[in-house]
C-alpha cells in the first residue's frame, strides 16, 4: 500500500477501520473533530456506524452498551470531552469491557483553549473516574506511531478485556505526516469473546455489570482487576531510548510530541559537545518503572530533566521511579505554548550548570 499523507486524526480513524473497529460514537471537539469528519465519510463504505451523540456523557454510555456485544467500539475526544466520559470509563473498567478511547489533548483546565497540551496525564494515568481501576495508556509521538498504537490499543483491549486510552497532544492530531497501513491486517491470537452478549440461546444467561452490592463479590471484582493490572505491568511496558550512551551527562524524559522536540535539542546539543540522552515512555500505564530506574542508576548520568507541555505531571512518576538517586529538574509550558528546541536546550544547560 502506497504511503499516504494524513493528519494524525484521520490516520487514527483509518487505523481503527483497518482493525475492523467500525462502531464509533463521538461528539465533535477541537482539536480532534477530523476523526469524526473522516469516519462520517469512511464508515458507510465499510458498513460501519458513526453515531454523533448528544454529549460525551452519552458517548461513554453508548460505548458501554455497544462493547457488551463483543464488537470493537471506540471514541475520540479532547480533554473537556474526556472529562465528561469519566463515569462511564470507570463503569467499563469495572465491567471488564474492551473499549478504545483516544484523547487528543488541548490546554486546560476547564474549557482552556484549543492548542496542544499534555496536561491530562494525571487524568489518563492516575484515574479520572472513581474506584480502583487503571487504564492502559499509550502515547504516540508521530502520526505513524499513532496508527500503530491505535491498532495495538484494540488488541490490548481485547486481550485484557479492559479500556485502553491513547493520548496525544493536539499537534499529534493536527499535523500531517506520511503513513502506511498494514496491507492485510490480521489480529494476533486473542482470547475468545465468550463473555459477549449476543443472545442466550443454547447457553446460560450472562450479565455484564459494574454493580456488586454484596461486599464479598465487589472485593472479588477488585482483586480480579488488580491481578489483571499486575499482568499488564509485567507484559506491556513500552518505551524508546534516543542517543542513550555512556557519555550522556543528563537524561531527558519526555513523551509524545515533546519527545520529538527533545530529539532535535539533543542533536543540536551534541554538536556543542553536550551529550544528552532521551527516555521516551510509550506506555504511560504500565509505566516503564524498572527501565527508568535502570537508566537513572548509570554512573555517567549526573542529572535528570523532565520536559512536558504541562506544569509537571509525568515528572511525578519519574520522581517515583528514580527514587531520588539523581537530582531531577522540570521544564514545562502550558496554554498551548510548545517548548521549542532552544528552550529545551536552555533548560538542559541550566540544569547542568552551564548557564545561569
Amino acid at each position, binding site marked *: 500500500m*502506497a*504511503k*499516504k*499523507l*494524513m*493528519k494524525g486524526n*484521520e490516520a487514527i480513524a*483509518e487505523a481503527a477501520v483497518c482493525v475492523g473497529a467500525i462502531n464509533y460514537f463521538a461528539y465533535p471537539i*477541537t*482539536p480532534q473533530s*477530523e476523526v469524526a*469528519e473522516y469516519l462520517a*465519510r469512511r464508515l458507510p463504505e465499510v458498513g460501519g456506524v458513526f453515531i454523533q451523540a448528544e454529549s460525551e456523557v452519552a458517548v461513554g454510555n453508548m460505548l458501554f452498551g455497544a462493547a457488551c456485544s463483543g464488537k470493537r467500539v471506540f471514541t475520540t475526544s479532547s480533554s473537556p470531552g474526556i472529562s465528561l466520559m469519566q463515569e462511564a470509563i470507570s463503569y467499563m473498567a469495572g465491567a471488564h469491557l474492551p473499549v478504545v478511547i483516544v484523547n487528543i489533548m488541548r490546554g486546560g483546565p476547564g474549557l482552556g*483553549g*484549543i*492548542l*496542544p497540551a499534555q496536561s491530562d496525564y494525571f487524568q489518563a494515568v492516575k484515574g479520572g473516574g472513581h474506584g480502583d481501576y487503571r487504564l492502559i495508556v499509550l502515547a504516540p509521538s508521530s502520526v505513524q506511531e499513532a496508527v500503530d498504537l491505535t491498532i495495538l490499543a484494540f488488541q490490548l483491549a481485547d486481550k485484557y478485556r479492559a479500556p485502553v486510552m491513547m493520548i496525544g497532544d*493536539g*499537534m499529534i492530531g*493536527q*499535523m*500531517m*505526516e*506520511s503513513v502506511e497501513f498494514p496491507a492485510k491486517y490480521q489480529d494476533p491470537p486473542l482470547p475468545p469473546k465468550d463473555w459477549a452478549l449476543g443472545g442466550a440461546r443454547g447457553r446460560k444467561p450472562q450479565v455484564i455489570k459494574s454493580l456488586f452490592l454484596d461486599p464479598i463479590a465487589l472485593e472479588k471484582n477488585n482483586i480480579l482487576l488488580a491481578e489483571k493490572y499486575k499482568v499488564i505491568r509485567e507484559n506491556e511496558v513500552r518505551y524508546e531510548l534516543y542517543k542513550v550512551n555512556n557519555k550522556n551527562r543528563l537524561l531527558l524524559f519526555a513523551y509524545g*510530541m515533546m519527545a*520529538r*522536540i527533545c*530529539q*532535535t535539542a539533543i542533536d543540536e546539543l551534541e554538536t556543542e559537545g553536550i551529550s544528552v540522552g532521551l527516555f521516551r515512555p510509550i506506555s504511560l500505564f504500565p509505566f516503564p518503572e524498572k527501565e527508568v530506574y535502570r537508566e537513572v542508576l548509570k554512573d555517567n548520568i549526573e542529572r535528570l530533566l523532565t520536559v512536558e507541555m504541562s506544569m509537571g505531571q509525568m515528572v511525578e512518576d519519574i520522581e517515583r521511579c528514580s527514587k531520588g538517586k539523581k537530582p531531577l529538574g522540570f521544564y514545562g509550558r502550558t496554554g*498551548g*505554548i*510548545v517548548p*521549542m*528546541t*532552544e*528552550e529545551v536546550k536552555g533548560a538542559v544547560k541550566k540544569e547542568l550548570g552551564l548557564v545561569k
Partner: protein
Amino acid sequence: MIFFTIPLDNQGHYFNINDGKTRQVLFDYRPFNKVKLKGILKVAAMVSHPMDKHGADFLYPSFSSNTIILVGGFGSGKTEVAVNLTKFLALRNKEQVTIIDLDLVNPYFRSREAKDEMESMGIRVIAPRGGNAYADLPILLPEIRGVVEKREGLIILDVGGDEQGSRALGSLSSAFIEGQYEMIMILNSRRPFTSDVNGSLKTMARIENAGHLKFTGVASNSHMIEETTPDIIMEGLLLANEVSKASGLPIKFLSAKGEVLREMNLITIGVPVLPLVRSMLKPWEKKTGGFRGV
C-alpha cells in the same frame, strides 16, 4: 488586469498558457538574486535557484484576474501554496498584495501563522488577531467582504479544506463577479480522498456546491511534506492532467518544494511551476516561535 509573471528569458519573452503562444512584452522583470529588501532575501534566493540551474526553462504561474481563490481538500497544502504564492506575487508586483485567511475549519497550521513574515514584505494579512487567532469559532471578519468587493491590488484567498471549509466562501460568493476571479483546486494525489480522478472530481463538486462558486483551474501540489520525491510530484501532475481533461479546466500551475524541484528536469513538466519554501513547520523543525505572537 493581466499579470505577466512568466518570463522565458530576460528579454521579456513570456509564454501565455491560455493560448499557448509566446509573446514579447515589456514588464517589470527583476532578477531575484538582486532583490535586497529586508526579510525577503530567503524567498528571493529560493525562487531564483531553479532558473539559475535550468535557465529560463520553466514558467511561473500567471493569472488573468486579480482575485485568486485557492481551495482544496484537507491536506492538499493550500496554505503552504497560498503563503508562497502570496510572497511570490508580492515580489513580482508593485500593487498591494493581500492574503485573506479564510480557513475557519483548521485549528492549527493556518496562513495566519506566517503573518509576521508576510507583513514584513508589505503584504496585507487579513486574519483574526489576538486570542481569536487561536479560536475554533467560525470567525468571518467583516472587512473581508469589503476587500473582496473593492478589488484593489491582488487578492489571494486561502480557504479552509473540503466542503466544510468552503462554506465560508459560500457566504461571500455574492461579492465575487464571474470572470473576475480565479478559483483553483489544489490537488494532492497522496491524500486519501483526492488520490484519483473520481475522488478529486467528487471533492471539487462538493466544494463548488458549498462555496457557490465555480472552479476556473486546477493546480498540482502532490507532496508528502519532508518525504516528497520527484516521483510523487510527477504522479500528481498525471492526476492533474486527468482531472483537467475530465473537467475541462486548465492546469494553472504545479507547486512543489524548491529543493526537490532542483533535482528535476523542469522542461518535462510543461506547466507553470511555483517552487515552495515550507513555512508551516512542525515544532521540532523550528528553534523558536510556536503558537505565539499572532
